[in-house]
């Protein structure tokens, strides 16, 4: 396997974790978050610091997960206080605050970022395998959650919070749970990203990146794990496979986002379901 394949598979794995975890917050539980990059970044920075302190990979993963979910639960508490459209703006705000804060922190490398992060010792291929395993675990978790009573309750909260409450479902607790799980996974992705690049700068976690993640979720079909996985893989590969997409990346992604919402709001998942229904009818 060439170094190129290894790195593209690694990035795909990381993007899958990010998109699937965002889908748990925004798709399953209906809490639109446009600041997923912040949790990703928190995990990456925490893992980087942990690697410098201990050079212990599991510990760094744990640090990333904790940092991501801590920030996530704080935002989750905010989500309990604000209306849903305020939440989108609040999460954008969290993203800008995170970037604006880290930029100025010399202990986090400020603008320079953090480089020379100790390697995991697994090599590029080993890292890739680790990333893939984590991505598979994330997908499995997502599939499990959507089948469990928790996923059921998430759907209820996402659709009508008050109605859910009258069925004994504590909407607040579930929103926190969604943010907690989703952002913990984003933190995990952050740690893996740190292992992959061994060098992080805050620009990698900006608002535009969060928008790209949301694009993956929406294009894949909000709420559908497999749809989102497909979109994450496809949208990561597309610029690689097609030169035109590479040169006009934002044009294409933005355009796809608009077209999908406008013409096929169910995303890829909706399209397949639709096709499947028609085949069955025929």
């Amino acid at each position, binding site marked *: 396997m060439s170094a190129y394949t290894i790195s593209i598979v690694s990035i795909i794995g990381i993007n899958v974790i990010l998109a699937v975890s965002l889908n748990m917050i925004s798709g399953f539980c209906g809490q639109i978050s446009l600041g997923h990059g912040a949790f990703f970044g928190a995990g990456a920075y925490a893992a980087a610091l942990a690697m410098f302190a201990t050079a212990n990979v599991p510990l760094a993963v744990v640090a990333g997960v904790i940092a991501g979910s801590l920030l996530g639960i704080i935002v989750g508490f*905010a989500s309990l206080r604000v*209306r849903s459209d305020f939440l989108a703006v609040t999460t954008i705000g969290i993203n800008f*605050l995170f*970037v604006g804060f880290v930029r100025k922190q010399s202990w986090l490398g400020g603008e320079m970022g953090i480089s020379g992060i100790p390697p995991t010792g697994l090599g590029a291929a080993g890292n890739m395998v680790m990333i893939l395993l984590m991505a598979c675990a994330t997908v499995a978790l997502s599939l499990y959650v959507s089948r469990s009573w928790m996923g059921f309750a998430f759907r209820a909260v996402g659709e009508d919070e008050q109605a859910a409450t009258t069925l004994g479902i504590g909407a607040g607790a579930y929103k926190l749970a969604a943010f907690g799980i989703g952002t913990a996974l984003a933190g995990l992705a952050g740690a893996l990203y740190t292992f992959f690049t061994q060098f992080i700068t805050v620009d990698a976690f900006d608002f535009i990146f969060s928008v790209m993640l949301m694009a993956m979720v929406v294009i894949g079909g909000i709420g559908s794990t497999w749809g989102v996985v497909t979109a994450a893989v496809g949208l990561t590969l597309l610029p690689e496979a097609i030169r035109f997409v590479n040169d006009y990346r934002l044009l294409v992604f933005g355009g796809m986002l608009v077209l999908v919402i406008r013409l096929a709001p169910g995303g890829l998942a909706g399209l397949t379901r639709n096709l499947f229904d028609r085949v069955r009818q025929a």
Partner: protein
Amino acid sequence: MYYIDLAVTGISFGCMYAMMSVGLTLVYGLLRILHVAHAAVFALGAYATVLAANATGSLALGFLAAIIVTPLFGMAIYRLLYEPLLGYRPDVPMIASVGLLVLMQDAFRVVFGEQGVTFRRNAFSFTTFDFYGVTVSAVQIALVVTAAIVFLGLHLFTTRTRIGVGWRATVSKPRIAASFGVDPIKVRYLNFAIGSALAAIAGGLVALLNNLVDPAIGFVVSYKALAIIVLGGLGSVRGTLIASLVLGLVEAYGTIFIGAWLDRDAIAFLALIILLMIRPQGFAGARAA
């Protein structure tokens, strides 16, 4: 003098933010959509101003071109993007709007180039006045004066003219307004037209102030204006005006006094998040709740 200089800066920032955001808040008030692509309208206004001004040699024609082109664009966004999505929850058109902004921003880059465009003749940009040691530039004065005219005009329009009253009524009580013969669809187009035209004027003025229109010009608007209209209590024009001025001043002083640990963009959002935690319904209260 120094603090007055900063205040002048802050007020002119504030007026600029107010004109950028008022269209956004109008759209929200009417349709409950966070019209993020308003930033693309703003950028289009800036490009139209500079390109038309350079082509004709007249700044006035530049602005005229901008306030002709952008309302059309704004109304097209409503017709082609938002109207078909009105039945969905508000997140859906918002995400589409974000997509449109990203698309437009890259389109500006492709069409007008990475380098950006500058005014060929722009004496206006470099004219300043000195009031007892406080320096005020012509563009700053233009910003404040335009904002004052615009907001006063908006106020008069919505209280004194038939169509304006109908518009305001539609925003607050759509059904009652409809029963009095106000066509809600017309009002929506009017809403987008006026909001877009205001953004275009703001865009043109910012273009003058920077003497540069680059593809990223709208981006700052997109997120800062969002913060502002939430601070202003979504849908409230007066709240937006107040929030803009406050944010302008906070930024003007904040850049100097807290710039060492937080950058300017983050200041707006820090204020936003603090406010939302204390008053989840925003400055202007429960009007949009």
